């Protein structure tokens, strides 16, 4: 049976933990709003780019000189995985979901006899994968200490990936990130970047109509050569933004749970404390009364 003083100390420590978690929840909520509006602002560009790409890609995909970024190298041997995680923790299973999904993919691909390379974005994923797959890790990018990410960051990763593709260092590139569904649900998702996957229906649309309508200046291939690296950067940018929004969403709900748990714990501890206090009073009273009776 802990003493009254012990109980008091524990209640106080849980109370200060609760203060911290509820403050973190507020901070995460504010940052979530900002991350969400940033993700929203990026949407128009991505949509329009997709429209243009659909018109262009359908006409170029069949040609033998189609750019590598669109059709890949034609092989399926070396896979580049780009797991996107946050730099910080205290966000429930957010980071480990992506890391675990990456680990499963690596095991599956290696089981098939493929070579796997990892370009880790975010500190948490890097640290997780480093333990087991440090031989596969070819690089990492972290944004620790940064307030927000901007498009230039995505472009840097994009350039790195494009350079590697041109040097023939991989055949297939896949990014693994948490898709932001709502504040409480983020779904770890694999998205293949290279060779590019066009939505089926759109390819047909474009093949049927769009190509026949549009004129291209200077010509399809020159535009594609500029558009594809840009598209790669945009896809990465989207993954980074969804990751940021998802992280704050996940942190918010994790901190909300922690605050509630701390509340429950305080309630239970206070109950124990009061019981112990009353037991003490009763015991003292009995002592006094029996003392008085003895006299």
């Amino acid at each position, binding site marked *: 049976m802990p003493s009254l003083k012990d109980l008091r100390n524990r209640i106080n420590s849980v109370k200060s933990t609760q203060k911290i978690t509820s403050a973190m929840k507020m901070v995460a909520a504010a940052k979530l709003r900002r991350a969400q509006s940033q993700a929203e602002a990026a949407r128009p*560009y991505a949509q329009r780019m997709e429209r*243009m790409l659909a018109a262009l890609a359908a006409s170029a995909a069949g040609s033998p000189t189609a750019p590598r970024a669109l059709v890949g190298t034609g092989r399926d041997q070396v896979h580049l995985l780009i797991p996107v995680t946050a730099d910080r923790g205290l966000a429930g299973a957010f980071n480990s979901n992506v890391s675990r999904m990456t680990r499963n993919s690596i095991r599956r691909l290696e089981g098939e006899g493929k070579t796997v390379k990892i370009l880790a974005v975010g500190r948490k994923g890097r640290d997780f994968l480093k333990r087991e797959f440090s031989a596969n890790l070819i690089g990492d990018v972290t944004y620790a200490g940064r307030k927000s990410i901007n498009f230039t960051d995505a472009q840097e990763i994009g350039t790195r990936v494009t350079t590697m593709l041109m040097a023939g260092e991989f055949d297939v590139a896949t990014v693994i990130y948490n898709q932001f569904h709502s504040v409480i649900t983020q779904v770890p998702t694999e998205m293949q970047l290279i060779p590019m996957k066009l939505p089926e229906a759109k390819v047909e649309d474009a093949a049927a109509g769009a190509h026949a309508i549009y004129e291209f200046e200077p010509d399809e291939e020159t*535009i594609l050569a500029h558009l594809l690296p*840009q598209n790669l950067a945009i896809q990465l940018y989207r993954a980074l933004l969804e990751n940021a929004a998802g992280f704050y969403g996940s942190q918010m709900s994790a901190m909300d749970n922690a605050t509630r748990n701390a509340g429950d714990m305080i309630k239970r501890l206070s109950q124990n404390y009061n019981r112990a206090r009353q037991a003490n009073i009763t015991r003292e009273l009995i002592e006094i009364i029996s003392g008085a009776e003895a006299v």
Partner: protein
Amino acid sequence: MPVDLEIVSPEKLLLSKPVDMVVIPGAEGEMGVLPLHAPMIVLLRGGEIRLYSGTNVTERLYVSGGFAEVTPERVTVLANEATPLAEVSRAEGERRLAAAEAEYAAADRMDVPALDAAQDRMQSARAMVELAQAA
């Protein structure tokens, strides 16, 4: 009948308004777009976008390059950056020009895509300097 102009950067929608005519800096020369233009997808170089109301220029913006989609009723410009001409900084342009020139000089002579990319950046930076000077 005006044409709907949209200028979009990866980070946000920069501008969306109907204009009577817009001049965009195509990779193969400036082109003016009036309503009912034939559908086109155009590569842009660094240069100036001019918005017209009637015959008057209402707005001038610098873009560092990008793409434009033209249809009979709208023009969509995908640009990494678009700055009103009055806010274009000459110093920034010169800094970029120097960086691009250094990159061009450093690039492998056989690496044609890298040389082309550096040249595009030089052209874009030069346009920025010239426009800043003119403004």
